[in-house]
């Protein structure tokens, strides 16, 4: 295997640990917003859609690119907006406690 593939595997392994550790102590009250936020973050696939659609030459690729762009953008923008709305609800609770 090439050096690049190995590097990708290292990145993969490290990112697994970071993803696991970074949320390991989340209280259950935040499970829903956290899931919703990670849901928004995988909308990063929009970047892939931009790269594919921006380079597409034939009709099939263009159609697929278009679908990917709409889906990806809905995932990103909708995902962050919905999470923000959920977290808005926790605002009072925060004020009460501090």
């Amino acid at each position: 295997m090439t050096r690049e593939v190995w590097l990708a595997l290292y990145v993969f392994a490290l990112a697994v640990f970071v993803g696991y550790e970074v949320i390991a102590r989340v209280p259950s009250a935040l499970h829903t917003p956290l899931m919703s936020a990670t849901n928004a973050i995988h909308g990063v696939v929009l970047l892939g859609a931009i790269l594919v659609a921006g380079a597409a030459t034939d009709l099939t690729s263009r159609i697929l690119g278009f679908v990917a762009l709409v889906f990806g953008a809905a995932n990103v923008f909708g995902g962050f907006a919905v999470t923000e709305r959920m977290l808005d609800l926790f605002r009072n609770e925060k004020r009460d406690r501090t």
Partner: protein
Amino acid sequence: MSLDLRETVVNLGYLAATVLFILGLRFLSSPRTARRGNRVAAVGMLIAIVVTLLDADVVSYTLIAIAVPLGAAIGLVAARRVAMTAMPQMVALFNGCGGGAAAAVAVAEWLRSGAAFGPGGSAAVGLGTLIGAISFSGSLVAFGKLQELLPTRPLLFPLQRYVNAAVLLLALGLVAWIASGQGQASSLWLLLATALVLGVAGTAPIGGGDMPVVIAVLNAMTGLATALTGVVLDNEMLLVAGVLVGASGMLLTVLMSRAMNRSLGNVLFSGFGTARASLAAADSTLVARQTTVEDTAVALAYARRVVIVPGYGMAVAQAQHELQAVAESLITRGVEVQYAIHPVAGRMPGHMNVLLAEANVPYERLVEMDQVNQLIPQTDVVLIVGANDVVNPAAREDATSPIYGMPIINADRAQLAIVLKRGMSVGFAGIDNALFYRDKTRMLFGDARKSLQQLLEALKAA
């Protein structure tokens, strides 16, 4: 900009976005910083999108200029309009979008490049298509069940497991064929179709009560599919962000299964058996005892300790504000009131916390299941508002019950349990509830919101 400079800007942007995503997740796991976390992650996303537009591979902006605002508008409007109660299905839908996008990207890149991939890249195309498409169709089924467009009960047919296993084997065979470099475009299209079938076939047999776990699994899968498109496109940003979501999503899934005292495999592959006849039909001597608003008001007003158990019925009736008003009224009378939150009450973990926070219920008044169960024997009244499966004693007593082994709130052990419910319909798990027929249980039928409004009036008179 020169090509070198462009590449540097793009990569610096990706690096910054990666750091912001990780910080965002970190902030999101603490209540004090959660809002900041979401915004930090969103800024990271914005940076990543903007620098990608500078990428040298992007030669035409027409499609992007039309499709991105369109998708963004759909997402934003949906996110704004959706009622808080419908949040879980909204998340399922957005997740499906992500999965569908990942599959489309993998297929499009394969077609565009004329299948010019090494074995690693081809395998990533195959797996990305497979996992992304499963997540897409699986999320749509989850959405349908949560929205109750589809039956929430497990959809089962004879030999289902064997059929599903055969379809899975076919899909994996196609991935291997594509990875070996012999696959044609037709193989990839066939894989896409097979994966779509697999998503439906895998999700349909799972009961509605387990949908929170299913959404978490599908979320992790979309993360993984995104990471695979990163391998396909040689894009580290996609790889890292996808893996982050995949790993954190998997951890969330495990935490949730643990809260239901079941293994993930049990949730995904057992299916909730065939729905059983209702208890009352099996034993005609069982009668549920009805009560009135006035009697309920008196029982609550002269109690020392009251525990409120909210469930999905409260969410549907939008009764959280009325419930909090009743609680406040009791507290001013000197009654000790607590809310008991079951980890899987509602349609998503933490669903009740979100809704009660909307009604300004102070955080200290929410008590988790284990604590509440210790206090229940000294509790005068347990007021169950639209919860069902999470207070079903069958989980403790009936080894044949599909929910046997799930930890519940032991409402049947209090002095009195009053159940606010629309009718005698079964819970989301599709099974009857023995609690409703107990001697110490009273049913107050009606829309939870109306019942609570009347209760508030009656409390003033009591």
